[in-house]
């Protein structure tokens, strides 16, 4: 029963996030030098300000890179960046424990209601774009699939690779856990093909893995597996599948170009939410994130910058 003791639970969460590579990644941004420290001691406007930033695991690497870069630009701001999933970040924003929530999906109606009830008013910012790559093992001869085929695979209608022109192998579906924004996006836009009244669910035997690493490890060694993940997390040791919007349409591979000219069908916006209209250091930070300088980092990490 010890798992129910709050301390223990947070221990487990800690482990989880460790595997996710970046659990509690706290950036303590030290003052650049003695001179800066001297100023901060005299002038209250130069005191250290802390921005708590938490949420989507898709965004966490990007948020970390930004935080690191921003320390050089404004040493008086400390950024603490944590992963955990979009739902986790938004829940923390609602509970008032973070200043900025990262989310790889839009805030849900219920979440907005809960926030208003709690006296906070989430404001949305699109901070980058991301393509969801469909990935398989390198040995898998499949090169491309239509959106409808992917939907049929994940909903359980197709259970063998030979039904989509591959080898005679069972299909093992991999997904992130339900607290992942990528999971929700994939359910709504791929499995349900973006149709509002579509109630299709993930096939019950879909493996729900707690981390991108878990998906990567299984894809690398299992030729039966199919998975999805943000483009920034795809390596050379997995095979990216070309996706067509429908039968007869061209198969498009995900890249910054195909996302920005709206060719690749499984692309989404990435968000940050603030509690009310941002002010002071948070506003400055967000303005910087939307600048072309910060958007260059987006490209470096394999995401797609927003074009103004």
């Amino acid at each position, binding site marked *: *029963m*010890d*798992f*129910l*003791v709050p301390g223990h*639970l947070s221990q*487990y*969460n800690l*482990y*989880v996030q*460790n*595997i996710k590579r970046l659990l509690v990644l706290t950036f303590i941004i030290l003052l650049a030098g003695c001179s800066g420290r001297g100023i901060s001691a005299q002038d209250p406007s130069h005191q250290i300000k802390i921005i708590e930033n938490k949420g989507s695991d898709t965004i966490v690497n990007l948020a970390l890179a930004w935080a690191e870069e921003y320390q050089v630009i404004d040493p008086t701001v400390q950024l603490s960046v944590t992963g*955990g*999933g979009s*739902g*986790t970040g938004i*829940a923390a924003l*609602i*509970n008032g424990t973070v200043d900025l929530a990262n989310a790889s999906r839009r805030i849900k109606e*219920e*979440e907005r209601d*809960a926030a208003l009830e709690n006296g906070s008013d989430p404001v949305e910012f699109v901070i980058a774009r991301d393509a969801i790559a469909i990935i398989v093992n390198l040995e898998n001869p499949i090169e491309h699939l239509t959106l409808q085929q992917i939907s049929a695979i994940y909903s359980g209608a197709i259970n063998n690779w030979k039904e989509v022109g591959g080898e005679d*192998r*069972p*299909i*093992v579906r991999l997904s992130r*856990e*339900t*607290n992942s924004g990528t999971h*929700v996006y994939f359910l709504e836009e791929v499995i349900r093909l973006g149709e509002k009244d579509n109630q299709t*669910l*993930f096939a*019950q*035997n*879909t*493996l*729900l*893995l*707690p981390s991108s690493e*878990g998906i990567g*490890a*299984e894809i690398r*060694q*299992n030729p*039966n*597996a199919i998975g999805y993940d943000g483009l920034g997390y795809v390596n050379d040791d997995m095979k990216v599948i070309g996706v067509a919007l429908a039968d007869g349409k061209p198969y498009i591979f995900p890249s910054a170009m195909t996302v920005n000219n709206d060719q690749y069908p499984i692309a989404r916006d990435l968000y940050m939410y603030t509690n009310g209209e941002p002010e002071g250091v948070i506003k400055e930070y967000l303005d910087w994130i939307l600048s072309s300088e910060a958007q260059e980092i987006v490209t470096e990490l394999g995401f797609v910058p927003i074009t103004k």
Partner: protein
Amino acid sequence: MKSKQITRKETVSSIREFLITALIKAAGYSAILFVGMIFLFLLLESFPALREVELSNLLSSRWYPIEDYYGVLPLIGGTLIITIGATLIALPFGVGTAIYLSEIAPRWLRETLKPLVEVLGGLPSVVLGFLGMLILSPYLRIWLDIPTGLSAFAGAILLGGIAIPTVVTVAEDALDAVPKSYRDASLAIGATEWQTIWRVTLPAARSGVLTAVMLGIGRAIGETMTVMMVTGNAPILPTGLKDLFSPVRTMTATIAAEMGEVANSSTHYHVLFLIGIILFLISLAVNVAASAVVFRQKKSQERILS
């Protein structure tokens, strides 16, 4: 005068006596108090779930909380199948190792092996999970020719491994406590070493060995991180032994994976606490069953001795 002094001394010592006994009593009762309070807290947090979710939904076989499917049966089944599998592995290996250490191994070997087994028990479960994910599950997939190695079986093997050190340590102590005269008597009437172990020593230490196994099971039921990493976490209701080789989702993994995401006091939150209560009751049942057996056995032993 003299008698007055004695009375004063007696009063002081009786007050001290009273205080110390009261303190020790309080320490003893505090365990009950804490368990009671935890149970009450779980009950209060989980009770709304029974009101908010229909019973037919709770007893269905679909767990998908973000769309309000709250069937807990696959999770209970997942925990049970992995625990049973782990017990089947930990029982023979754990008790076998304990017998070897206590009855057969020479002294020097025993003194090296026992600490090593205990070190195994101290391995962080996340490390075991990582090994399971990267090494065990790929090989299981190839050897057993199953679609994926991330399965209940991989979880059972690792949980068995986690439970073994507990079983060995406690069972070895129990075997060690059996008086030497029992073994001597058995060997003297011409029994072989194996007959002595199987018919005399092991039965004499039965209650301790049983406690060891129960503690091991308790360890396995509550384990979270390892199972979360190697069992695939697909909420499928296991219906038979063949499901040992397909993915499952346990109650502990569900709580750990989803508790961070839920909004406070939402239906999902209450259902997770309900799962916590179920888990609590299962481990309580294991403990009660164990002590009932031990108790009954003690009674029958007393009867023989009298």
